[in-house]
């Protein structure tokens, strides 16, 4: 008995030594990969926050239904646990919740919230603790100009939006639909969003003085109470085209007055605004022919975009807008980064994000990749409102569903 008592542990040791290859580390097997996000589920941004929640949940369910995310270090697929908190659309709460996700919930990686102010505030937490972070709700370039290494964004910048709009306008000039040089009336809300938009237009105009002449450039305060002074300036500028950047409430207020004052331009745009149902209901036929740029649209005729649209609309019985689409894709990008890294090491996941090249994506251009500052640089999809509440995708050519109507018919 005594001899067996010595022999048995030795046998176990030898057996284990034969099974484990030389050089392999003994590591604890994680039960789940934890991803966390704080979203504005209540408060001023609750509509958008709700969309993001649906997008994240749909992506994670899809990944978990396939067995989880493959992590090479453990040689198996590991399911993802998604923790979502409500930041009540409040910057301070958002920062606190991201601190909680890192310190208490011990997340492996973070997904982003929605809106430039919230994202600007809480990305500081991700960077401080060196936790990889991907968002699909913050486009303003200022977020990515802070030389942060762990922050990635799947929305192209607002400057890029302006560039896309100007490149499309150039195409219209070349096609003979618009003259050269064009007189442009430019205005944007007095926020980083509006400032970037105006800067983008001005840069392109400066680079091509034979094509563009910005005859008016004005910022305006958000929540406008009176658009008349601004629109009197637009009228006096005698511009050929009218480019503005505004949030939806101001877009409605300004464009109602624009219509009442019987202004007309060969092209009218409010940047990313135009196709929203609330605005089309509020403006009726006055919103027809408005040109807008966005990060995604449900009519993009690619397989990935269609697959998302169909699945989302079936799951939630809700029209697929860009918010859940970009949230969905951001969560998938993070899962791919973990898979590419083959580990849950945060620095290695960050490195995988920096090298990300996700093909067959639902985004415009079909590819997710990040510039050295962490922001994607894809083109925007451009749309034009048509009578009867319809929308036509007019740019880029490869995903266009119709031809732009330029100049806008005069009513």
């Amino acid at each position, binding site marked *: 008995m005594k001899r067996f008592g010595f022999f048995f542990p030795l046998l176990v040791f030898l057996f284990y030594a034969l099974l484990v290859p030389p050089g392999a580390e003994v590591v604890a097997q994680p039960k789940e990969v934890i991803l966390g996000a704080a979203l504005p589920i209540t408060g001023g941004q609750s*509509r958008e926050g709700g969309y993001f929640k649906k997008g994240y949940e749909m992506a994670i369910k899809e990944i978990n239904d396939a067995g989880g995310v493959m992590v090479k270090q453990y040689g198996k697929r590991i399911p993802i646990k998604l923790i979502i908190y409500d930041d009540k659309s409040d910057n301070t709460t958002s920062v606190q919740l991201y601190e909680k996700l890192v310190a208490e919930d011990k997340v492996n990686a973070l997904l982003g919230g929605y809106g430039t102010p919230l994202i600007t505030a809480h990305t500081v937490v991700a960077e401080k603790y060196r936790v990889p972070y991907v968002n699909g709700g913050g486009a303003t370039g200022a977020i990515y100009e802070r030389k942060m290494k762990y922050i990635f964004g799947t929305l192209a910048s607002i400057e890029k939006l302006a560039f896309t709009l100007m490149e499309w306008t150039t195409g219209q000039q070349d096609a003979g639909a618009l003259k050269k040089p064009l007189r442009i009336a430019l205005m944007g809300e007095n926020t980083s969003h509006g400032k970037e938009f105006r800067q983008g237009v001005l840069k392109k105009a400066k680079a091509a003085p034979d094509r563009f002449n910005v005859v008016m450039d*004005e910022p305006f305060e958000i929540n406008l109470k009176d658009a008349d002074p601004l629109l009197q300036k637009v009228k006096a500028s005698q511009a050929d085209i009218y480019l503005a950047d505004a949030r939806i409430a101001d877009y409605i207020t300004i464009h109602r007055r624009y219509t009442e004052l019987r202004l007309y331009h060969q092209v009218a745009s409010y940047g990313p605004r135009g196709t929203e149902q609330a605005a089309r209901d509020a403006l009726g036929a006055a919103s027809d022919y408005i040109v807008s740029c966005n990060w995604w649209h449900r009519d993009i005729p690619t397989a990935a975009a269609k697959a998302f649209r169909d699945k989302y609309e079936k799951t939630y019985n809700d029209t697929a807008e860009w918010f859940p689409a970009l949230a969905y894709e951001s969560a998938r990008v993070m899962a791919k980064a973990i898979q590419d890294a083959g580990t849950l090491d945060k620095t290695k996941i960050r490195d995988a994000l920096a090298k990300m090249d996700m093909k067959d994506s639902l985004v415009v251009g079909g590819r997710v990749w990040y510039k050295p500052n962490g922001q994607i640089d894809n083109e925007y999809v451009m749309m034009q409102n048509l009578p009867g509440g319809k929308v036509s995708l007019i740019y880029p050519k490869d995903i266009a569903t119709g031809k732009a109507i330029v100049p806008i018919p005069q009513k």
Partner: protein
Amino acid sequence: MTIDIPALLVSAILLAGLYATMSYGLALIYGVMKIVNLAHAGVMMWGAYAAFVLIVNAGMNPFLAPLFVVPAFFFLGIFMQRYIVRRVMFAPSISSLLLLFGIWLIMQNISYLGFTGDTRAITTKYTLMTFQVFGIAISINRLVVFCVGVLALLVMRQFMGRTYMGKAIRATAQDGDASKLVGINTDRVMEIAFGLGIALASLAGSLMALIFAFDPDFGRSHLLKGFCIVVLGGLESMVGVALGSLVLAIAEALSILWIMPALQDFVSFALLVIVLIVMPGGMVGLLAKFKKT
């Protein structure tokens, strides 16, 4: 670049009607109770949603909706004064400020629960409808809001000058203790005054909803503008509020000839600071001084 100044002035005058309508209630409540009603913005926002429900959901004529909204909010105001505001009437002013700020936040959150954060707008057959006068396009909606603003001023002046309750409100505003001594039921007067202030705020909200898109945060910037107008007008006077609205609207409109439109709010707040320093009695105080001399 030649700006159409007559069109700008017409627009400013129409805007003054809107400014006055949204500031009467603020001035009335401050005048009688010396309370700054921070819930005013919440009431305007609820007024906008009430109009939305009546016009969009119930299909009511947009210009009849205020006839239902205003009485309902008058009683809400009486309820608020009797059961909530009265408890802090004689406490330090910070108590009433915080209480009414809290009520505003509660109103906002109720709206988020009931209506979500979606931007809403009321579209009627009058929306975007205009007519031309000397080549200036005048919006029907804006003209109606202006007319209601003038009408509210006339009705309030008649009410304050010719009815017992109006005179009692003025007496209480001048000296609450003396009013009690001559037999005025000041508690009742304050209830009515608060109810009227809330009703006027709801009237403003229901009319503004015909012009602006709104969400539960609606009213915040209008409240700040309302403070400027009330201070400019002289804090307690309805006529002062109307004059203050006109001066502010014209100053803002003409300011674009010299400064960028983004600085329009700067004009309002610069006026507020100047008035507080140079003529704390506002325009009405200034006019009274001229009359004496």
